[in-house]
């Protein structure tokens, strides 16, 4: 059996407090696996440690206990097979859109010309071919998110981590972006072979990323879709996009309290799928579990205030 693309095994995370006070436990004993090609969303009330979970998956944060594995291998430091799309602005403001998309490639040692060509291709794919020479402050919020998306996908990661990437966008832009992400994600699988053709540099990037023999070994599995771990507080978004929705309890010390398989047909349109009777059914079932947690989280916030 092939190992999951990403697995969190009984991870807990406790943040040390300053003056000897007991630390703050964000998540406790969470076990979660994302298969290769699977799109998993994590929903939960605010402050339940969703981002903490993602940071541990990325290797930006070491779990206090438990293990994180990427394709069966325990993480040491950063998760080199993952791309991360942040909630906040993450583009380098001193680089143009094109420069930002090129950044990862040049960090990993790709040649200037190759990186430029590949980055241009990806800017085209997210609809920003004409905006390559703009600086982030000259782009709209939605455009900046597209650049971030291209910046991550140009590196061809096997695992995609997204932390409420569209929460700052207005609802129309947001639905557009959601559909685009789904299309790219599905396109990545079906046209994978075709896409590998145009850029010789394409193969250079993952090799530079330190994917040793194991990366080569998983070559057959590269035909499948990328694994996605998507964090959101928006249940509609989670159901519309995912194969599976995982519910976290209210913090502190969040744990997994529910898991639902979303058996809606793909490809989906995130706006249309909402009127699907199955969607409504799933939404009700998940909301029944989530509501309790949201209320609990709200009570806690009131108590603290």
């Amino acid at each position, binding site marked *: 059996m092939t190992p999951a693309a990403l697995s969190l095994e009984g991870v807990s995370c406790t943040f040390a407090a300053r003056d000897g006070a007991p630390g703050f436990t964000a998540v406790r004993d969470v076990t979660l696996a994302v298969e290769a090609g699977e799109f998993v969303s994590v929903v939960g009330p605010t402050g339940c440690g969703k981002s903490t979970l993602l940071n541990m998956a990325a290797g930006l944060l070491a779990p206090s206990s438990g293990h994180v594995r990427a394709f069966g291998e325990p993480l040491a430091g950063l998760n080199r097979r993952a791309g991360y799309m942040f909630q*906040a*602005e993450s583009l380098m*403001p*001193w680089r143009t859109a094109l420069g930002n998309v090129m*950044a990862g490639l040049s960090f990993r040692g790709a040649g200037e010309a190759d990186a430029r060509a590949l980055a241009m291709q990806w800017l085209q794919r997210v609809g920003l071919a004409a905006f390559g020479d703009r*600086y982030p402050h000259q782009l709209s919020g939605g455009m900046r998110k597209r650049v971030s998306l291209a910046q991550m996908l140009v590196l061809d990661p096997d695992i995609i981590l997204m932390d409420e990437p569209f929460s700052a966008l207005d609802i129309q832009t947001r639905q557009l972006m959601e559909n685009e992400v789904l299309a790219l994600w599905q396109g990545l699988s079906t046209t994978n072979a075709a896409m590998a053709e145009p850029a010789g540099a394409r193969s250079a990037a993952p090799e530079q990323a330190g994917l040793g023999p194991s990366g080569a070994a998983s070559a057959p599995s590269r035909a499948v879709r990328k694994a996605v771990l998507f964090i959101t507080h928006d249940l509609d978004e989670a159901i519309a996009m995912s194969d599976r929705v995982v519910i976290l309890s209210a913090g502190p010390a969040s744990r997994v309290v529910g898991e639902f398989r979303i058996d809606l047909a793909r490809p989906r349109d995130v706006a249309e799928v909402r009127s699907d009777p199955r969607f409504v059914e799933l939404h009700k079932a998940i909301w029944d579990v989530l509501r309790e947690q949201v209320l609990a989280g709200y009570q806690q916030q009131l108590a603290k205030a």
Partner: protein
Amino acid sequence: MWRFIKPGRRNLRAWQLVLLALLFLAWHVLTVPGLVPHFLFSDDNQAAFFFGQPLKVLDRIGHWFFVDADIYRHLAVTLWETVLAFGIGTVLGLGMGLWLALSPLAAAILDPYIKAMNAMPRVILAPIFAVWFGLGVASKVALGVTLVFFIVFFNVYQGVKEVSPVILANARMLGANRRQLLRHVYLPSATSWVFSSLHTSVGLAFVGAVVGEYLGSAQGVGYLILQAEGSFDIDTVMAGIVVLTVFALVLDAIVGRVEKALMKWQPQAGESEKV
């Protein structure tokens, strides 16, 4: 008629020039002996003795630049000192700021010393520098460096400390190693802070050069002023001050240009773009 003269955005420059002319006129009227009866001094000539006369000052400047053409050498020396002090101070401040911001332990150890050196009135070091480096260019540069260094240092230190953690995490996820982080994240972020302090630091480099010259030198505009002062030649002192002021304005304008060219990635308030 009043519609055209009324101060507004349009004729700002004209009004500034009018104000300058009025200042010179007042200066002229109040200092030329015998033009108005003396009211502050006991003698018609004293006003001119203490404040100089604008026409003589202009005449002096004209001689410096056109008739004798002997000020260029002094200006070049002062400029050279300013540029050296600015360059060395900036590089040292940048390096030190990056180092201390990235190694908190060193910063903690050096903290009281940095505070002490910053609090010290550093102009007082000028005599020591004169002893160490002689009366030539080096002692002026040293003084300028001590002034520039701290401005740049504190700005870089702050700049590195305030690098957005998200941008940093993102760069790491994109595969940047420590050196690449320094080169592509910390340094650009820090330089934006350096540029925001550029006007101040160029100004201070200039102050260092002139004060150094004034305290002891054989050339430079500060030296000209020092010499004139020795012979109570107020007109020449005033002329030196005018030249220095104009020169400082020119430097500032150049800095503004450079800043605008290099910081084009930064948003400017109310900026709109022609597509």
